[in-house]
């Protein structure tokens, strides 16, 4: 069974003459353990799609089902619980709490869920150590590099053991080397730890780390590509496709 399923998912902003259709009847599926990248030109609706998948926004039409649960009729608090237990988020700008250290930031979702603080920190530390941050547990965000902050964010996304990770331009604020590290880490999350990852990106090089690419243009799906495991060719293929759909 698909982990995520959308049927004719639509999002319209504004009304009347000023209405903008950000998503136009998008139907898609993501299976458990899949790494899917969503690409498209600026304003194509890829971030909107991610927001709707994560219950951060409500659709104007259509349905979203995550891990068997339809999001449409859920109350705000229930959506919050869903986000903390079954979905992990990674944002472009790390969004770590500046006054908490790495371990405390990573433990946030389970702490919010009422898990015992010691237990929560233990789980967070386990993930941080897996990501090579064992020596940085007590550092605050302003004491970490961009790549390290993003790794903390990914650990945070995994601490509640969700089946799904949603990443919105996770490498957008990083230099090339750090961006590659993070993209590789997300691929590892999918392959080694068996979580579904849906990543929005505009960078073909980063998208090439995924297994499947969904292209959006003007709010609609215009292409889907399954990638073979040769990253060099894949980036070029994706770059060409981006140019095509960008026109």
């Amino acid at each position, binding site marked *: 069974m698909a982990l995520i399923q959308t049927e004719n998912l639509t999002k319209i902003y504004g009304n009347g003459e000023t209405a903008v259709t950000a998503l136009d009847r998008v139907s898609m599926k993501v299976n458990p353990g899949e790494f899917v990248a969503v690409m498209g030109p600026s304003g194509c609706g890829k971030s909107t799609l991610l927001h709707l998948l994560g219950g951060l926004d409500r659709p104007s039409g259509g349905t979203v089902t995550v891990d068997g649960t339809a999001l449409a009729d859920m109350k705000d608090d229930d959506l919050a619980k869903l986000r903390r237990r079954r979905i992990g988020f990674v944002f*472009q700008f790390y969004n770590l709490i500046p006054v908490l250290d790495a371990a405390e930031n990573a433990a*946030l979702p389970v702490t919010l869920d009422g898990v015992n*603080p010691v237990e929560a920190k233990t789980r967070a530390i386990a993930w941080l150590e897996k990501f090579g941050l064992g020596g940085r547990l007590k550092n605050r965000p302003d004491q970490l590099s961009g790549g390290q902050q993003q790794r903390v964010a990914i650990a945070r996304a995994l601490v509640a053991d969700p089946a799904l990770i949603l990443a919105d331009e996770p490498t957008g604020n990083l230099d090339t080397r750090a961006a590659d590290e993070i993209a590789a880490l997300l691929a590892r999350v999918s392959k080694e730890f068996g979580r579904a990852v849906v990543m929005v990106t505009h960078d073909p090089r980063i998208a090439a780390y995924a297994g499947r690419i969904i292209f959006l243009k003007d709010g609609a799906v215009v292409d889907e590509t399954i990638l073979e495991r040769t990253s060099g060719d894949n980036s070029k293929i994706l770059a060409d496709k981006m140019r095509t759909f960008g026109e």
Partner: protein
Amino acid sequence: MNLQLMLAWRYLSGRKLRTFLTTLAIIFGVLVIFGMNIILPTMTSAMQANLQGMSGVVDYSVTLASGESFSPEIVPTVRAVDGVRAVSASLVRTVNLPAGFFGGATAPSAAITVLNLIGLDPEAARSVRAYPVSEGGRFLESADTDSAVISQSLADKLGIGVGDGFPLPSATGVVHLTVVGILPPRTHPGTEEVLVTLPQAQRMTNETGKINTIDINVETGAGETRRTEIQNTIEAAIGPNYHVGTLMSGTDMFAALQLGQAVMGLFGVLALFMGGFIIFNTFRTVVAERRRDIGMLRALGATRGTITGMILAEGLLQGILGTALGLGFGYLLGAGLLIMVGPILGKFLNITLGAPVVSPGLVVVCILLGVSVTVLAGLMPARSASRVTPLEALRPAMAETGIIRKIGAGSILGIVILILTSLALLSGNELLISPSGLLFLIGLVLVAPILIRPITFVFGKFIGWIYARRGIGELAQGNLVRQPSRTAVTVSATMLGLAVIVAAGGMVASLSVVMYDMIRKSLGSDYLFIPPSVSVWNTNVGAGPDFAERLHGVDGVGDISSFRFAGTKINDTGVSLLGIDPVMFPKVSGFYFIQGNESAYQELAGGRAMIVNPSFLTAIGAKVGDTMDLLTPGGPVPYRIVAVATDLLNIKITTAFISQADMAADFGKTEDVFLQLNLAPGADRTAVDTQIRAVAAGFPQFQLISGRAYYETIKMQFDAAFSAMYILFGLLAFPSFIAMLNTLAIGVIERTREIGMIRAVGATRGQIGAMVTAEALLLAAIGTLFGVVAGWYLGFTFISAMGAVFPLGYAFPAIGILVAVVFGLLFGVLAAIIPARQAARLNIIRALQYE
């Protein structure tokens, strides 16, 4: 809650300066309430004891109805009455002295022809009033024999000091008393007193085991109703053979102190509310700054409740911290003020102060107030924080761009309130005006946001002109207009502080005008002939018309006015009836009219008319125009109330004034118990003085004093009290300063990136500093304008409210307004110093990278 408290603590400690400034606001509010409330009870009870000691009066005196002495058996009965604070039994006897008893005919002591010998129990006496004996002496002790305590003025007249002796006639012959202590000079009307132990007085007067007076002081702060209740209980306890005399208690200064205490309490609460404004401002900024963090937390699964709890937790922590520090500093303030003020009061008012009075109830109230105001101030921002959507985490922050602030529900309500309160003021109806003062303030606070832009525009032109050469005037103006809500809240906090100064100034100005007027009228004549017991007229031996005639016979004497006394009853309530000459009285003395005017004197002359005082109205429940039966020796006789007025001497006693003609006809009284005399214009003061004194010597039941000197003494006391009040009010403007400082500091932090950009494009450090200072001046100007307007209105409503009880004419608080303007602008400049320096010294690169 664990996570929320942890986050709250981390955020608070992560922004130390802001946390400090915000907490300072709460500290100050609690400090004022706590500090003032531990000073005032101490000052009040000290003043009560000391003033009563000075003026020689207590709350009540019990005497035997026949005037004879009696056994002290009833003293415990009186002491046991609920509400009685202290009792002191004494034996008081007037000792008439032959002329020149103390010395030759020309010695100063020769003028002493009568003294009051007062035998008392030293311990008990000091529980009723204070006896501030000067250095080098001591008060009486129970074991003393042939020892006395006298006043400095008597000692001067006798030419003696501590350790010296003086003779006194007694039932057992002349007794030589040794002075062991000297009290401050007697400054008020009455006979000089010689204090000895009770057994000593009993021996000297052959009244072994007897007393004739029980002085009683009631609980501090008892109002009229409570005092009447206590008096009734005392009367019931001791029975009809005894008379409970109500004497002038506490004086007007004491009443002003009680009012002052209530007002201080109100101001303390105001200060706390101002602290709440500051916290509110800070939290709003905090929520705006932390939109990303909050949005992210929501995206991670935090519920709205969690976010609200996080902000409220910050409020709670600040409230607890601020309150704790406020209590500590408040105690230090109170104790410190007492230490500072003590010597001054001791020197000028002969008052000795005790330690600060800290009641557990006060501590609890301060804690509750401090914490709850802080948490409440964070409530609205907390709710708005909870409404931040997860998407905020992903979108850039939007600055408030209200160019013309939309008129929301709050502003409309504010406009309505302002219109209604203005109409109330114009109506002249006291019932409507009284509550509208605070409503007016609320109305101003609500409309402030929509007024910010137009007022800033007007003032900004001026500021821009001052800073034209520095090129930053418009920037400063724009900063305020861009954040109209924050500016409005700061202006509101400033307004409250300054409104207090102006309103207080108005009240004090009006109060002092009335007080001085009353004192001048009641006691401002050239000479006063005072009986031993002022106000309790029936215990005095008066003088026949002969005395006044002889005074008239002295060349240079002008008008003479007198009081004649008769006791009467109206519906079983005792009334002190005083006869005046309706023609002479207004020339020499005069009433302060509350209802009616000077034409009432003519009505008095017309016969069977009376002018009553407010105590009469309260006791009898009558009004102008009513006709009441006065009980005369010949039966009830109707008298019509033609006016309500008061004078200083009878202010607390149920009194009615009738013409001396009526008094002679209906009551058969022609005895003068109190006289006032003015010299004729151009009289030779020295010559007349000698002759007047010569005449007065034949009537030793009166003490002759100069009215002018007495007036000056009383005025000095009032001046001291009023000055102290002004200083305290000035302190309350301090939160305005904190409000401005807080806003400016937040503004600099918020605009770090922007300041970095302005510096990057070429602004100098000086220009940045000037920009912040200009903003501060703008804020100060707007706040001061609001404060003056609000304060003027508030002061007016206070006066009108008091008018229901005691009319005061409105005196425009010119000084209060001037002080407020100076304070306001000064605060603006001072508040800008630190933020301006901070802004000017920002590192450009770091500022540009600031998130």
